[in-house]
């Protein structure tokens, strides 16, 4: 898998002491991990805390990561275990959980509700992003759309895409970059111009 190679490159840099590379992995997988943890802990604020803990645990365990499995598979296991432990701790101490739920800060809870994909607001935001991305992809020129689809949905390497599209690797790199730029521009137009919430996306 190409995505694994990309992650592995970042992992190796983290293992060499570049902590900035780990930030990029967090940015890449933050939504997936939070969503995963949300399956166990229904409260979005708790889920974020546990997801954060999972990322911290993964970072500390990263020196032992040998790359036998994909980074996300490994991170997934850590996140699941952390969520289960948090759930068990909550069951052992239900009183504090109840206090946390009812005593949580209103503003935090509001943001949590907004970002919980199962709330109407969360679902609306998710749909809005997907629609924007899909609409932007539909407007792309054929060569750019094919390149980004082969990369993101099929997980092909630049070399494989080049062979498939019968063009140099440099052209593939350029096409994928231009496709992303076009989609990103559309996202910023919608969220900055229309809703002013681009910062919510990162």
């Amino acid at each position, binding site marked *: 898998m190409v995505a694994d190679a990309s992650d592995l490159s970042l992992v190796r840099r983290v293992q060499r002491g570049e902590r900035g590379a780990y930030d990029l992995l967090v940015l890449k997988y933050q939504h997936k991990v939070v969503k995963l943890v949300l399956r166990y802990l229904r409260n979005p604020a708790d889920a974020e805390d546990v997801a954060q803990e999972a990322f911290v645990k993964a970072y500390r365990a990263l020196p032992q990561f040998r790359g036998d499995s994909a980074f996300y598979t490994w991170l997934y296991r850590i996140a699941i275990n952390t969520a289960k432990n948090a759930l068990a701790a909550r069951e052992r101490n239900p009183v504090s959980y109840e206090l946390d739920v009812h005593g949580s800060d209103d503003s935090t809870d509001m943001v949590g509700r907004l970002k919980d994909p199962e709330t109407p607001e969360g679902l609306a935001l998710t749909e809005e992003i997907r629609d924007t991305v899909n609409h932007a992809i539909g407007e792309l020129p054929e060569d750019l759309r094919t390149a980004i689809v082969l990369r993101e949905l099929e997980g092909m390497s630049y070399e494989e895409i080049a062979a498939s599209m019968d063009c140099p690797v440099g052209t593939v790199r350029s096409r994928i970059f231009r496709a992303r730029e076009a989609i990103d521009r559309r996202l910023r137009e919608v969220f900055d111009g229309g809703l002013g919430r681009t910062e*919510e996306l990162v």
Partner: protein
Amino acid sequence: MIHDERESQLSAMFDGELPATECELLSRRIDRDDNLRARWSRYALIGAAMRSEPVATARSGFARRVSAALRGGDTRLRASRGRKMVLNAAVSASLVVAVAGLSITLLRYTAASGGVANGGIGVAASGVGAGAGAGAPAAVGSESVASTTVGSTVGRSALTNSVVASDTTPRRGSNGEPVSYVTPASASTGNTALRTELADFIVAHSQYSSPLMRRNLLSALISSEDGSDIAPPRAAVTASPSVSAAGALHATFAASAPGQ
């Protein structure tokens, strides 16, 4: 144009298709450039949206909070390591103090009861230090048997004083009340003899003793084997009636060893 090239590099790096040297340079720039970080995050969002994966689940600034937690965690890790070292030292120190206190209590108890046990030997040994220290100059000053006897006698009296001082301490129960109000009997001759023999034994084997003194003391120890002038210690009698004084000491040590 340079801007586009950098973002093209970012896109290639996102896909793991950028050469390592360029990756290194770009990652340093990403650390300082919030726009590049935001763009990286949106690239992840675009891919997730295309694959119908979760998007916009985490609040903004999540990665920054993780980074801050890592920095804080590192600090806590160092602090906890320091605390652990201090804790280990404190535990070790308290363990030493506890063992020392227990030993002293046991020695006092044993000395007070007048038994020949580990504590008895320990008291005798500590008494030997004082006795030998007092007796050695006399022995060194004169090489006659008589002066050796004087030295030995000084050591013996010091030992006896030590034992008597210990014997005067009443034994007390857990509630602080003395176990018995009966005046304790003075140390038996046998016990005193054993401690005297121990003093002689140690002085005889001390590197600070003169060869003549050692020889005289050893002779005295051997001559006491028949028990004509010193009653045999109870432990030695129990272990083996025919054992020598030195042998009795060894036997006592050996007998006390498993109980320690």
